[in-house]
């Protein structure tokens, strides 16, 4: 192992050279070889590139190469005022776009100390939790797709479509929502929306039985998941892993409970954890989380008061005081933090997005070492990354 390819960063240099497919030269001993997985690969969830050093099918080393979905979100924030950054937020993580969108609104509200009307708070909780369920449903489908099961993907998409049409009723969009505004939301919900949501929850609970028969209990699925891709407590904490991946390692950390934001402190819900820290544990945590989200939605629907959805005086153009603010929420993938530096002008000086996928992906080289190619796909699928969120 004398060649320079084993120096840190060698693979990265190969990735950025003029030849997009360049890989380090083969191992002179002929023991190992390199395999480029991605950027175009059916299960790379977009455009991740993994440079794998393989011995047969066993992974000796893995180097994730990112940046293929870099869209300069954070730089864009420095080029426009606070309001104009709103549409970007839901495109950072398009699977839980609503949560990100609302989170950004909440961050700015915290900065400006704006009071949000009660009704708007409840609506926000409902749509965010619906969005979380839809994100988990999509994860469920794509994870099974990664494992080779195609039909569960279509079933979960069928359920997801229901959520999308419910959200479409109030937000007007299917995927990249721009529903939140500083101080409230754009559209009020009607009775039909609440009824549809309640009906959907009942339907999803019914479908869960099917999912369990089709997937959860399946012996092939279990054998693909059990004991595979263990991200143990220490590794997870070391790398700053959050979200279901962390909870699957037995750490009951959920921002909604640890540092309640919005009105989350008013709802009763559990934080599902598991001890296995493997693919199955992550699967279990996510499925259980869907149930908890449904519980929250039910409580919010029961409690939702009448009233305005925006403060009396709508915010149009503003200049926050000089200062720094951090605000974190629990997105579907983990802790999403927004760090705003204000220099007193109407344009943010800097917005840093702390995205969960980035940290969750960071532990991959450690976790993937010694696994098989097929496991790589399964593990990547189970931690549920969204690439534009990694690259921002």
């Amino acid at each position: 192992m004398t060649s320079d390819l084993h120096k840190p960063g060698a693979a990265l240099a190969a990735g950025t050279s003029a030849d997009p497919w360049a890989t380090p030269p083969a191992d002179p001993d002929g023991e190992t070889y390199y395999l480029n997985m991605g950027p175009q690969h059916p299960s790379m969830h977009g455009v991740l590139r993994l440079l794998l050093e393989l011995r047969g099918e066993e992974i000796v080393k893995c180097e994730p190469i990112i940046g293929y979905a870099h869209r300069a979100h954070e730089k864009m924030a420095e080029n426009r005022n606070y309001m104009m950054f709103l549409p970007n937020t839901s495109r950072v993580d398009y699977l839980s776009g609503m949560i990100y969108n609302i989170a950004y609104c909440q961050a700015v509200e915290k900065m400006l100390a704006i009071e949000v009307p009660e009704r708007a708070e409840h609506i926000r909780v409902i749509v965010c939790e619906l969005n979380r369920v839809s994100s988990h449903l999509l994860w469920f489908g794509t994870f099974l797709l990664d494992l080779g099961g195609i039909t569960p993907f279509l079933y979960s998409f069928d359920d997801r479509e229901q959520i999308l049409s419910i959200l479409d009723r109030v937000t007007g969009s299917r995927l990249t929502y721009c529903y939140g505004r500083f101080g409230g939301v754009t559209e009020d919900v009607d009775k039909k929306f609440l009824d549809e949501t309640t009906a959907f929850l009942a339907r999803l609970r019914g479908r869960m039985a099917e999912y369990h028969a089709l997937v959860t209990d399946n012996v092939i699925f279990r054998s693909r998941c059990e004991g595979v891709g263990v991200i143990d407590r220490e590794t997870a904490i070391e790398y700053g892993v959050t979200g279901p991946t962390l909870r699957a390692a037995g750490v009951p950390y959920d921002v909604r409970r640890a540092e309640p934001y919005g009105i989350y402190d008013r709802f009763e819900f559990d934080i599902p954890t598991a001890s296995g820290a493997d693919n199955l544990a992550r699967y279990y945590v996510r499925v259980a989380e869907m149930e908890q989200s449904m519980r929250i939605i039910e409580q919010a629907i029961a409690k939702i008061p009448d009233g305005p959805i925006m403060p009396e005086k709508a915010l149009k153009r503003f200049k926050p005081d000089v200062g720094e603010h951090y605000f974190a929420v629990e997105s579907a993938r983990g802790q999403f933090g927004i760090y705003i530096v204000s220099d007193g002008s109407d344009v943010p000086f800097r917005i840093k997005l702390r995205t969960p996928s980035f940290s969750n992906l960071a532990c991959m080289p450690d976790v993937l070492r010694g696994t098989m190619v097929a496991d790589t796909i399964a593990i990547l699928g189970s931690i549920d990354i969204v690439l534009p969120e990694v690259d921002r």
Partner: protein
Amino acid sequence: MSADTSLVAPGAEKKRGYLALLVAGFFTLLSGMWVTLKNLFRKPVTLRYPRERPELSTAFRSAIDLVDFEELGSHDCVACMQCVNICPSFCIQVEGQKYDGVKRKRATKFLVDYALCSVCGLCIDVCPTETLKYSKIYDEVSFERDAFVFDLLEPFVEREEAFLEGQRIADAKEAEEKKKKAEAAKKAKAAVAAKKKADGGEEAEKAEKPKAEKPKAAKPKAEAPKAEAPKAEAPRADEPKAEAEAEAPKAEADAPKAEADAPKADEPKAGKVDKAAVEAKPAEPKPKAAFAKPDSDAKAASLARIEAAKKRALEKKKQAEQQAEGEGE
């Protein structure tokens, strides 16, 4: 947790023998096959799109369009440039013009590049006359790259003359009324001011100032439902608000504060910049160039900016005071 979603937590299962596991595993496979078999005989959920059209929700968002107000017989875009300035994607181009005898500006060009749009709805939020809405476009495609620049004024072109005519009459009428009212208000104000001066000191006067302005702005609004006969009455109700806000976007982060005092009738500065750019390159909406570009690496620059910002804030305060004094007299 309800029984339906209960899961056996990983590791909680009992260890079973080799054959028992095999048989149990086999039965889990069968239960999975039963699910797919059941679904085989269910009705597909597919929306057969070209034949069946989707039902768009009431909140459906797409490219923006101009509202055709019935009582106006046309749209009500006053080319205030607020949508142009707030648009994060720079996909709106508006140009306006003042016509003789018509009090407010009128849009002469309203282009939207749907290919750039991110359907955030900020433009609709800021529109002072609420003349913007979402169109119902949802399956537009083209073989051409620039086929998505929509000309929103196109359907209104023929009606424009008639609208202007009606507006002239209405404006003349309203101007007269306003004149009368203004005189009355002036008298009342003078009386109040005299009284105040007699009563209190200068400080009281300062405090009074903003209050005095408010009813002025609110008055036409309150009157709007009363005077329904003139065609253009309703939208005009918002007029003072519109003008007040048209001022706001001018205040670019780095622009000198003095501009805030620019003549009201003119279009905002940002709009002018935009117009010039547009003329140079008509097909592509040119984003406005005056961005605040923070120097990201230097801390010193940041401090300088913060200092400058403080200075500006101070200046602004001073100016406001001066203005208040000036108007008070």
